[in-house]
């Protein structure tokens, strides 16, 4: 018995050796470890980063966001013109082919735009309801008519979810396409998808910038455990890994075989406040809570000094971020006095924490102690993440920490969701300001950038004064790669430029 197990052990060891050897031999294939596997290849049916980041490897958009994440540049649309009333957009489609060799036409582009608007399975239809018609004037000209003028419209076309899909390939079978797209317009094609394990991509020879692509292929491999994923890169079993925990950055930086990438993101962590719950309806109470939080201490402890203290809901480096926005000073004594003045000196708050989320739990423990200094009692309630979202939507909470990453470079999307919207109760906060709501709607229609910026500054100031939520910190994307990998880069909207990545 023992002997048999010994043999099995040896066999397993040998197999592991062979396996790790095959990792290393595959030159030109970039292996990237991430937390979870993709969920679909139908771009309209996902709103998750884990999918979007692969979509942008496989599908091309009409208008791209550049590497800095602040400007738009031509994608499949070579050029475009906008009518004077801001209602009609005319796109000239580039001479390009899908991976199956068929030409990319204006008809495919129109089909993709209308599909995300009308398809019952689309998670993004609200964002494209503004589109009145989208038609192919000729095979290379797409004409889009809007219902009202819209400043953010062009930037919404850069969303990976509205990528140009092959009409023929999608209509041949939507479900099959979602499993394994037969035609792709991006730098890579999907060769194989081993569900729950990895996505295997291969260079698309028909990509319109095919000469830009250096890699033969890419493998997105799911390695859920953070420590294991980092060890895999350190051992050379993976070329790169994303989602480096804050606590590991210093240590990985010291490894001479690795490069740690700290790329600017649009992630902002904030403390949601339920404005409908008792004393929290009072602006002074919310301001006191903001003052009771030592954001610098959170940045130091939770992000190991890698994050930066946030002062506006529009993240630093993003379009119209107001850098001079007010920041409440950390002053627990004054907070205590303000709470007493507002008649909320014995405030007790119910704090929903996502169980199992390391960062969330650390912030919670810290906030609990900070609030205690201002005389506020906080009861932590650890809840499974699947349940916590429903509780927030239902208003079953006083405070809770959440985060947001931008999908498009224009601030309109986030602003609408967190300040100017009724349907999602302003991102569960139940914040309600008519003044801000009107301003958000007006800013959407304002086509003059300077005037628009002034409006957004105004919105940021008002939101800060009202404490619609408490801005905590901004944090970058943290990725790691082996030294032989070059140009592994993620722009602030999360797009990986794998078409530029080189494996030496």
């Amino acid at each position, binding site marked *: 018995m023992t002997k048999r197990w010994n043999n099995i052990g040896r066999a397993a060891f040998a197999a592991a050796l062979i396996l790790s050897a095959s990792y290393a031999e595959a030159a030109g294939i970039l292996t990237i470890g991430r937390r979870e596997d993709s969920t679909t290849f139908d771009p309209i049916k996902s709103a998750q980063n884990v999918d979007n980041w692969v979509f942008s490897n496989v599908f091309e958009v009409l208008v791209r966001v550049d590497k800095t994440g602040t400007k738009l540049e031509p994608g499949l649309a070579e050029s475009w013109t906008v009518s004077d009333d801001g209602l009609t957009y005319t796109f000239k489609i580039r001479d390009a082919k899908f991976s199956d060799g068929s030409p990319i036409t204006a008809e495919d582009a129109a089909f993709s735009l209308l599909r995300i608007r009308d398809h019952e399975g689309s998670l993004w239809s609200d964002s494209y309801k503004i589109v009145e018609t989208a038609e192919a004037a000729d095979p290379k000209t797409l004409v889009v008519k809007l219902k009202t003028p819209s400043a953010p419209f062009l930037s919404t076309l850069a969303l990976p979810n509205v990528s140009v899909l092959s009409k023929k390939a999608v209509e041949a079978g939507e479900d099959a396409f979602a499993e394994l797209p037969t035609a792709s317009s991006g730098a890579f094609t999907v060769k194989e998808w081993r569900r729950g394990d990895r996505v295997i991509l291969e260079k698309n020879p028909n990509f319109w910038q095919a000469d830009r692509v250096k890699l033969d292929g890419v493998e997105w491999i799911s390695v859920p455990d*953070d*420590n294991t994923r*980092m*060890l895999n890169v350190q051992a050379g079993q993976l070329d790169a890994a994303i989602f480096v*925990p804050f*606590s*590991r950055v210093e*240590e990985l930086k010291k490894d001479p075989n690795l490069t740690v990438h700290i790329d600017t993101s649009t992630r902002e962590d904030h403390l949601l406040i339920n404005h409908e719950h008792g004393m929290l309806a009072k602006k002074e109470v919310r301001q006191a809570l903001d003052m009771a939080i030592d954001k610098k*201490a959170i940045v*130091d*402890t939770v992000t190991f000094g890698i994050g930066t203290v946030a002062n506006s809901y529009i993240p630093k480096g993003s379009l119209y971020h107001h850098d001079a926005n007010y920041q409440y000073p950390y002053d627990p004594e004054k907070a205590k006095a303000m709470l007493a003045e507002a008649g909320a000196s014995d405030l007790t708050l119910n704090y929903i924490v996502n*169980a*199992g989320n*390391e960062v969330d*739990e*650390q912030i*919670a*423990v*810290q906030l*609990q*102690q900070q609030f205690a200094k201002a005389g506020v009692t906080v009861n*932590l*309630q*650890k*809840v499974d993440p699947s349940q916590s979202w429903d509780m927030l939507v239902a208003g079953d909470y006083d405070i809770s920490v959440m985060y947001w990453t931008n999908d498009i470079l224009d601030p309109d999307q986030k602003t609408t969701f967190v300040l100017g919207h009724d349907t999602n109760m302003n991102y569960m906060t139940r914040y309600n300001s008519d003044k801000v709501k009107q301003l958000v709607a007006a800013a959407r229609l304002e086509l003059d950038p300077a005037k628009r910026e002034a409006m957004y500054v105004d919105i940021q100031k008002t939101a800060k004064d009202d404490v619609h939520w408490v801005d905590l910190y901004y944090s970058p994307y943290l990725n790691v790669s082996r030294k032989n990998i070059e140009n592994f880069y993620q722009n602030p909207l999360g797009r990986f430029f794998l078409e530029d990545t080189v494996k030496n």
Partner: protein
Amino acid sequence: MSAGTVSSSPAGWRLRLSQRLPLVIGAGILLFFLLLAIGAPVVAPYDPILQNGATRLQPPSLLHPFGTDNFGRDLLSRVIWGTRIDLQIALIGVVFPFVIGTIVGTIAGFFGGIVDALFMRLIDIILAFPFLVLMLSIIAILGPGLSSFYIAMALVGWVSYARLIRAQILVLKNSDYAVAAVSLGFGRFRIMFRHLLPNAIAGSIVFAMSDAVLVLLSGAAVSYLGLGVQPPVAEWGVMVAEGQSFITTAWWITLFPGLSIVCLAFGFSMLGDALGELLGVHE
């Protein structure tokens, strides 16, 4: 066990040193932790929940013998205060199932028939579910927290005790002294709890010691999963969970609470073994 060794005379005790050693070690460990728990406010050098940004993630030193965690809290103090919670878990988590199980088992064994059949089927149903899964679902329904854990423990844990006692009672109720008690006209409850139970309970007491180990570990596991003790209270399972993300950079956060769990569990099982020998119970 031969007739000679049943003797409880002092001479007999002294002779069986090999038997006494586990007892001394087990009792010693438990006593140590008990004293630590009682004296926590005096013994612990720091406040277990006070965060200090200046002393984050320090390795063990003279100032902080167990090091500090990512909030700068002293781990030695947290381990000491954690003793209170973990001992409480082991005690309450055993006492309720023990009492419920003993009563149910005695009644089922003594009355037999339909009462016995009903209780035994109920036990079969509970045993059909994996222990932890059932625990976790009950806690999920009741909401996270220690009291939910105790309730879940009482609801699930009594079955083992009930089966143990029932088997003993089934044998003993046909013994001569039981028959004699019946023929003397004693009441059923007197026979059950005065005559039969004291003779049947030794096995359960020994089992309770090893059960304490299981309860302690489930308590730690449940807290590790975020369903037991809520932060910032110091509990060993929670501390292991908190240290997990730092395991490659700050091993001490997980090591010391982990060792404490092992030590306490070891103490309980030593005591269980020794009691088993002393009371003549063979598992």
